């Protein structure tokens, strides 16, 4: 652990020690009040610097079995959130791995959603109804991206020009592709929202590598307090912190 992250862990522990729950009960209002009120907690400390060059064992597949499917997914996410002069796109951020890992778990298996039948088509106000779980929707959608690409351009989706990939993605977005038991627009929405989630979620989930997406957006991530900053007339550029910075 480098010096900086040690420091931030230290101060977090100190903060917790001085707040109620660490003491095993509430300490008198006066004590903690004077601590917090006089800005005992220093909110100007520097976050740790972490290097992306360490080997990242997290970047392997736990849901997809064919690398080709994963590459198609990767190419699609990069069109949704592309690399540009501001910074990395979905692939460099690790978003495809985020999606892979999510599909292997509770998200992919709709563990906290109502999945009992009958599945009937409703009005446009009743929410989409499909018996397919998310992992199946993704598989169906990804395979369909490939077959659309083959029939339109006689090439794999991953080998198309960016604009060609966009054309195909738009067809899905506009619900112009027929899929089995799910609409292409529904798949596209899921792909879009999963891409954005992976881009901006805490890096603990495998995307947002090095918090680069937060840096592009000037989002400070997980800070402990803004008590003495929120009144500032000026925009304050704060180096982001992730939950990893808060593990003691």
């Amino acid at each position: 652990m480098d010096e900086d992250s040690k420091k931030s862990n230290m101060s977090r522990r100190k903060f917790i020690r001085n707040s109620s729950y660490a003491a095993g009960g509430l300490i008198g209002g006066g004590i903690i009040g004077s601590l917090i009120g006089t800005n005992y907690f220093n909110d100007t400390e520097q976050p740790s610097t972490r290097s992306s060059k360490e080997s990242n064992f997290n970047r392997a597949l736990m849901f997809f079995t064919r690398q080709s499917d994963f590459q198609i997914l990767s190419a699609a996410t990069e069109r949704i959130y592309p690399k540009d002069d501001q910074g990395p796109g979905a692939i460099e951020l690790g978003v495809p791995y985020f999606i892979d890992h999510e599909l292997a778990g509770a998200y992919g298996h709709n563990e906290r959603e109502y999945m009992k039948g009958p599945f009937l088509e409703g009005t446009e106000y009743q929410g989409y109804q499909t018996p397919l779980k998310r992992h199946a929707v993704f598989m169906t959608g990804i395979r369909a991206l490939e077959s659309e690409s083959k029939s339109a351009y006689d090439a794999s989706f991953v080998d198309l020009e960016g604009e060609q990939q966009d054309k195909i993605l738009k067809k899905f977005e506009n619900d112009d592709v027929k899929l089995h038991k799910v609409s292409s627009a529904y798949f596209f929405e899921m792909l879009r929202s999963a891409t954005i989630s992976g881009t901006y979620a805490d890096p603990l989930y495998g995307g947002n590598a090095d918090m680069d997406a937060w840096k592009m957006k000037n989002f400070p991530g997980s800070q402990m307090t803004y008590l003495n900053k929120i009144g500032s007339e000026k925009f304050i550029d704060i180096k982001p912190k992730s939950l990893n910075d808060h593990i003691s």
Partner: protein
Amino acid sequence: MAKKLDKVEAVTVGVGWAGGIIAAELAKAGVKVVGLERGNDRSTEDFQMVHDEYRYAIRYELMQDLSKETITFRNKPGEKALPMRQFGAFLIGTGVGGAGAHWNGDTWFFSPYDFEIKTMTDKKYGKNKLPKEYTLQDWGITYKELAPYYHQFERMAGTSGELNPLRPERTEKYPTPPMKDTPILKSYMDAANRLGLHPFRQPSANISEVYKNPDGETLNQCQYCGFCEKFGCEYGAKSSPNVTVVPTALKTGNFDLRTHANVTGIIHDGNKATGVRYVDTQTGEEFDQPADIVVLTSYTLNNTRLLLQSELGRPYDPKTGTGVIGKNYCYQITAVATGFFKDRFNAAMGAGALGTTLDDYNNDNFDHSDLDFIHGGSITMKQLGKRPINENGAPSGTPRWGKEFKKESIKWFNRSIPVTSQGASMPHKNNYLSLDPTYKDAYGNPLLRMTYDFTEQDHALYDYITARCADILEEMGAEVVEPKELTDHFDIVPAQNDHITGGVIMGADPETSALNNYLQMWDVDNVFVIGASAFAHNGGYNPTGTVGALAYRAAEGILKYRKNKGQLVKRETSNKLV
């Protein structure tokens, strides 16, 4: 076979704000109370890893597990209702503290107009201001009668705030001073003042300074951490049942809190409840908990569902307008206009209830003679703390993905903010709750069916109030101001507003209401039903201040009932009940 447990004096179904307040008040008075809560236990210590947008605000870890139970939904009678398969329009809490563990903390008192809305509207605008399909009625209690309970809730919760110039009936100061000012909120305040409106810093349960409540519980100072709405507070600075009433109840030794206990029915003999049945969600075992007094505190939806499922009270029938259980289900219409500004502000910093509000277009504070709606909404700018997965707004015309999307959504992240209004919702005869004939929960019981659509009144109010939100942003000097349109019909998918009310409403007349003004059932003396389910309509503010006040009122009623038995309130009608 369900295992029969030893009888207790009182049992609550659910331990959120309502259940927690009842537990604390009864336990302090020496009553043995069992609190049955379907979710898990939790305290401030559980929120150390809470600054995780994906886990809590996207995957909704603290919300009800929809794989076990949800609702079905349709826009109108006659349509086939379908299950709400994932969260969208509104969220439902679960676990100790209920939604109070992760609410924003906007802590309001409804207005005097709300409680006597029928009488006052008729008097001022005539009997036909709203068509007769609107089942508008008074609440059977006045603001003045409820005010002491409001203050009781506030003192317990430690609410921070500043007096509202348009609510002169309140003179008592807030327990703690208003929250901090910020540049963007000041700019809103200044613009509103220039327009001749009456802005003020809104009441908040994110506490502005350390506060010790009358029960001896201490709340810490809000750190403006920006992970507030949908998140538990890792500092114990957001007033929640978990840091107030639940520990208060536990300290007495009279409160038996049982988690993973999902109540599936009220046991009764038609006139009197004898207890409740519940399932241990971890083992599947069934238990019968006998009790002298049954208190439903399981939120709007399950308060209604448990009564219908247990065949207690008279179910509402929209065709005939008779019956009461399920009646007057209301929502809130959330008017939104977004302002896009030239300069950046510290958008990530904020708190759930950090905001500036005005009531110039709320309640009956403006003349409705020439308008085709009644009531209105509070108009607020809040600095909640923006988070990057959810906040990718850009002026309309910007693509939803790709290069332009990335550029614009990044550009506006720290430059845009909405002004929103919580528009009051008037009851309509076709908006109601009933049992679904098809879909079942994990225990084989019917799901609750919601039949709901926006009314003409909603559309008229929405259009009017959205324009007022936009006026203020214009005055603030936003580069672009974008009012949002209301969908033609209520849509269960996009996130809108978490305040759903009605279904087991209070009133003065047992024929048109389910509860008296102590929240005691007219038809069953030993059942009290507490929550926003008791609202006869939904007002122009968040509901929980009123839920809390009603809970304190009900606690007093339960203690009275314990002594004297019978109905606590004389019926206002001599008509025979059907």
